[in-house]
C-alpha cells in the first residue's frame, strides 16, 4: 500500500489504467493520510468511501486536494476566511469539475491565507499550516495547504491559485513543483476571487510530468469565464532530457540584491547544470521589474476591494449579531469577519480607486504593468525563458514576518512580474539550503507551457531532487 502512495500521480494513473492498481487503494490510503495530517494542511477531508472511477480516465482515479477557495458543491469553501465560515456553495468550480471528469476525485480542501492574501498561510482564520520539512516554519503561501499536503505525501497532487506567486513560492518553500499557467489558460469560474486580472489556477505536484498531466486536465476555454482562452494545442507530457539550443535569460534585477546567499548558491549551481545540458545562459534586462511589487500592491488590492465587497452579511456566510441598522451590520460583519491583512488590502485598494487618486495610483500602476509586459516581450526576442530564484529565501519561521507586511510582500519579488505580464512560470526544487528546499523559476511567453514543462523536465532530471522528506523521516 505505501508503495502505491509513493508513486507519482502519473505513474499511479498508468498502473490503474494497466489494471495493476485498484484506485480504491489510492483513495483509502490518501484519505487516511489526509485525515491524520499534522500540518494543518486541510480544512476539510472527504469521509466518503472510494467512488467507482473509470479506470480509463486520463487521471486514473488519483485523488486531488483542492485549495479552499475553489467552490465545491456542498463542501465547505471558505477561502480561509471567517466571513465564509460554514459556507457550502451550490455549484462547483470549472477547474475542479474538469478534474473530477478526468478521473481525479476530490480528496480534501486545503488551507490558505485568507482570500489568498499572504505568503505564509499564517493569515488563515483556520490556523497556520506548517512546513513538512520543518514544522516550526511556514510552507509559504497563499496556497500553503496544497503545497504542504503534496510535500508531506498526504495528497498525490493538489491545485492552488497564484495571484502574485501563491503557487510558485509555496512550491519552492515545500520542495515540490508548482506551475502558474498563462492568464486565461484555466477557467476562474468558481475560484473565490482575490484579484481578477491576476488570479490563475495551477497544479502542485511531485514532479514536472505530474504538473503537465494535471494542467492538461484543468486547462481550456470555459464559456462561464469570458477571460479564459483556448490553448493553442494539447498539453504534452514532457519528454526532454537536454537543453540543447535553449536560451536562458537571467534578469539581473531579480537575481541579485535581496536574495539569500544559500538561495543564490543553489540558483547559480542550477544555471551551471543548465549549461551542461546545452543551454546558453546570458544576463537579460527587465528594467521595470523592480517596480512590479509596487504596481502589484495597487492593482491587486484595488480589485480585491471590489471583489470582497459582496461579503456583507446579507446573503451568505458570517453576519455579525446585534446590528442597529444596515450600515452597522455591514461594518460589524466585515470588522469581525475579515482578518487584519484582508482589511489592510481592502483599505489600500479603496484608496487607490478613490476619486482624485485613481490616476496617480491605479492608473499609474496599470501603466507600469504594461511596461513590464513590454520588458518581457523584448526579452523573448533573445531568450526562450527567463530564470530566477522563485523566492528570495527558504522557508522562514512561523511568526517571523507577521508583524512586518512589507517584509512579507518581498516574498513575491521574483514572481510578481510574471503575474502582471500574465505569462506562465514554473517553480521546481533546485536543492537545499540550510536543509530546506530552494525553488528555481522558469518563465516563458504566453502559452509556452509545453516548452516550459519540457525545459523544467530536463532540468529536474539533472538536479535529481528528492521531494519526499516523509520517506526519510
Amino acid at each position, binding site marked *: 500500500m505505501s508503495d502505491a502512495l509513493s508513486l507519482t500521480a502519473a505513474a499511479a494513473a498508468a498502473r490503474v489504467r494497466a489494471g495493476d492498481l485498484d484506485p480504491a487503494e489510492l483513495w483509502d490510503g490518501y484519505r487516511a493520510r489526509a485525515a491524520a495530517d499534522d500540518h494543518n494542511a486541510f480544512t476539510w477531508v472527504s469521509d466518503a468511501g472510494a467512488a467507482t472511477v473509470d479506470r480509463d480516465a486520463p487521471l486514473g482515479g488519483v485523488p486531488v486536494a483542492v485549495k479552499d477557495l475553489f467552490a465545491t458543491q456542498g463542501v465547505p469553501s471558505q477561502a480561509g476566511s471567517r466571513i*465564509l465560515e460554514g459556507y457550502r*456553495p451550490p455549484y462547483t468550480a470549472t477547474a475542479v469539475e474538469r478534474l473530477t471528469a478526468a478521473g481525479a476525485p476530490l480528496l480534501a480542501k486545503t488551507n490558505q491565507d485568507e482570500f489568498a492574501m499572504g505568503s505564509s498561510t499564517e493569515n488563515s482564520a483556520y490556523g497556520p499550516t506548517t512546513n513538512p520539512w520543518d514544522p516550526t516554519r511556514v510552507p509559504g503561501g497563499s496556497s500553503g495547504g496544497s503545497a504542504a499536503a503534496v510535500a508531506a505525501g498526504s495528497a498525490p497532487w493538489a491545485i492552488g491559485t497564484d495571484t502574485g506567486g501563491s503557487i510558485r513560492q509555496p512550491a519552492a518553500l515545500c520542495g515540490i513543483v508548482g506551475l502558474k499557467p498563462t492568464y486565461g489558460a484555466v477557467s476562474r469560474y468558481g475560484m473565490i*476571487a482575490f484579484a481578477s486580472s491576476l488570479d490563475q489556477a495551477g497544479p502542485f505536484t511531485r514532479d514536472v510530468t505530474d504538473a503537465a498531466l494535471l494542467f492538461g486536465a484543468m486547462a481550456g476555454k470555459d464559456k462561464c469565464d*469570458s477571460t479564459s482562452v483556448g490553448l493553442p494545442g494539447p498539453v504534452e507530457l514532457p519528454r526532454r532530457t537536454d537543453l540543447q539550443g535553449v536560451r536562458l535569460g537571467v534578469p539581473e534585477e531579480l537575481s541579485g540584491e535581496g536574495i539569500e546567499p544559500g538561495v543564490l548558491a543553489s540558483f547559480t549551481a542550477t544555471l551551471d547544470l543548465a549549461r551542461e545540458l546545452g543551454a546558453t545562459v546570458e544576463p537579460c534586462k527587465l528594467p521595470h521589474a523592480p517596480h512590479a511589487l509596487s504596481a502589484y500592491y495597487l492593482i491587486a488590492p484595488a*480589485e480585491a476591494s471590489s471583489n470582497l465587497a459582496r461579503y*456583507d452579511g446579507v446573503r451568505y456566510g458570517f453576519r455579525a449579531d446585534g446590528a442597529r441598522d444596515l450600515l452597522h451590520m455591514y461594518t460589524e460583519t466585515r470588522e469581525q469577519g475579515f482578518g487584519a491583512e484582508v482589511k489592510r488590502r481592502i483599505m489600500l485598494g479603496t484608496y487607490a480607486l478613490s476619486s482624485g487618486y485613481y490616476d496617480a495610483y491605479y492608473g499609474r500602476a496599470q501603466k507600469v504593468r504594461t511596461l513590464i509586459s513590454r520588458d518581457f516581450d523584448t526579452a523573448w526576442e533573445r531568450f526562450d525563458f527567463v530564470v530566477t530564484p522563485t523566492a528570495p529565501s527558504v522557508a522562514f519561521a512561523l511568526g517571523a514576518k507577521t508583524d512586518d507586511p512589507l517584509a512579507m510582500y518581498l516574498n513575491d519579488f521574483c514572481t510578481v512580474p510574471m503575474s502582471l505580464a500574465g505569462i506562465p512560470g514554473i517553480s521546481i526544487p533546485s536543492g537545499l539550503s540550510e536543509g530546506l528546499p530552494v525553488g528555481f523559476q522558469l518563465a516563458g511567453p504566453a502559452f509556452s507551457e509545453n516548452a516550459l514543462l519540457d525545459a523544467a523536465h530536463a532540468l529536474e532530471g539533472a538536479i535529481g531532487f528528492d521531494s519526499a522528506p516523509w520517506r526519510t523521516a
Partner: protein
Amino acid sequence: MTQWEPVIGLEIHVQLDTRTKMFCGCALSFGEPPNSRTCPVCLGLPGTLPVVNAQAVHFALMMGMALGCEIAPRSIFHRKNYFYPDQAKNYQISQYDIPICSGGRLGDVRLHRIHLEEDAAKLVHLGESGRIHGADASIVDYNRGGTPLCEIVTEPDIHSAEQARDWLNLLRVTLRQLGVSDVNMEEGSLRCDANVSVRPAGSTELGTKTELKNMNSFRYLERGVTAEIERQIALLEAGEPVVQETLHFDPASGRLSSLRSKEEAHDYRYFPEPDLVPLVPTEDMIGAARAALPELPADREARYLAEFGLAADPARLLAYEPQWGDYFERVDADGKAAANWVEQLRARIGADADPAASKVTPQALAQLIGLVGERTINAGAGRQVLDALVAEGGDPAAIVEREGLGSMGGGDELAGVVAAAIAANGDAAEKVRGGNAKAMGPIVGFVMRETKGRADGGEVGRLIREQLGV
C-alpha cells in the same frame, strides 16, 4: 421682468426584452415568486463570473443604429462600487468612459450616449415607514437583479415639460418599433429621470440643475418638470440660489422632495471590470443589427406627410402606432381618404386593438372608400356600412344592397322629396329666399329623414336653391 428658459436633459433606463439576464442564463422575471429567477451568478455568490448577453448587445447595436449613434469599435464595462442590498455584488457592472453608443439624435433632441448595464434587485421595506430608515425589516427579491438595461442620456436640448413628454413618447414608440423593450412606464421597463435647470432667455450658460426621479408616467414627468421649473424660477426671482440636488416626485401631492444633497454623493470608484473582455462588435454583429432595423416612427411620419399628403395629426397617429400604420398602408385607396376611414375604424374598435385582427379587412375598407368616392353611397351611409363591417365583416357592396343604402340619384324622385320638404318648411323657405342660406337646415333635414340618409347632400342643396330660385 426676466424671461426664463428651461433647459432639460433626460436620462432614460430601458429594460431590454431579452430572453435571459445581462450576465447570466436566468430567464427574465415577470412576477414570479421572489428569488425564484436566480442563480449563483446573479446572486453574486463567491467565485462566479459574468458573461455578456449577446442579445442585449444586439439590441443596443440596433438602438445605436436607429438613433444615428456612433458605435464604439471597442467599448468596455466598468464596475460601479457602492454598498446596498439591491446589488448582490455591492457593485453594478455598467459602462463608464467608453459606452457602446455615443452621440446620435432622435427628432429635435441630440443624444449624448447609450450604454449597457444590469438592473438592481427589488427591496421591500416592512413596517410603517416604507423606507429603509425605520423599517422593521427589509427583504430583497433578486429576480429583477441582473435584468439587462440600456441607459440613454440626452443632451440638454429640451425646453419645456410638454416637449419632454412628447419626446419621451417618440422614444417609447421608437423602441417599441425596434422590438427591444416593452417600454412600459407603469411597470418600470421604461424609467425616466430629468435634469432640469432654468436660465435667462437668450443666455448660453447653463443654470444649476436638479435631478428629478420617480416620474413613472408621462403625466408625472410633465407635472414633475413643470413643478420644478416653477420652483426654480420662483427661487431665482426671489434672488435665491438653486441647490444642486436629487428630487423625488410624489405623485400623490405633486410635490418634489429632496433625496440627498451633492455633499453626500457616492464615490463610485469606477474601474474597468476585470472579469470581462472589451466588447468588440464584429462585422457579423453589426450586419445582423442593421438587417433587423424596421422603419422607425419618425421616418414613417415623414413619409406619410410627403408620400400621402396626410395632415400632421393623422400622420403622427398612424406612424407612432405601428399596427395602425401597417393597416393603413394595406388599404388600397387615396391616402387622405384611407387615413380618414382608418381613424374612424380606430374610433370604433379602440386604439389598442389590432385592426389586422378585426373583421374589417383592408380590402373591404378600400371598397367602402371607393363606394363613397364614386358617390354610390354618401358619407353617412358609409359610416353605417363601417358599423356593419365591424360587427360582422363581409362585403361593403353587399351590405349597401341588403340595407338599401345606395344614394338616390338627382332625378325626379329626389326633386319631388325636395318640393315636399319646402312645402312643409315654409318659414325656412322664406328665409332662404330672403338670402339666408344657413336657414336651409330644416329643409335638408326633412329630405334626409324622408330618404333615410341616402340622398346626396350636395345634390339636395342644389335642388333646394333651384326650386327656391336663389
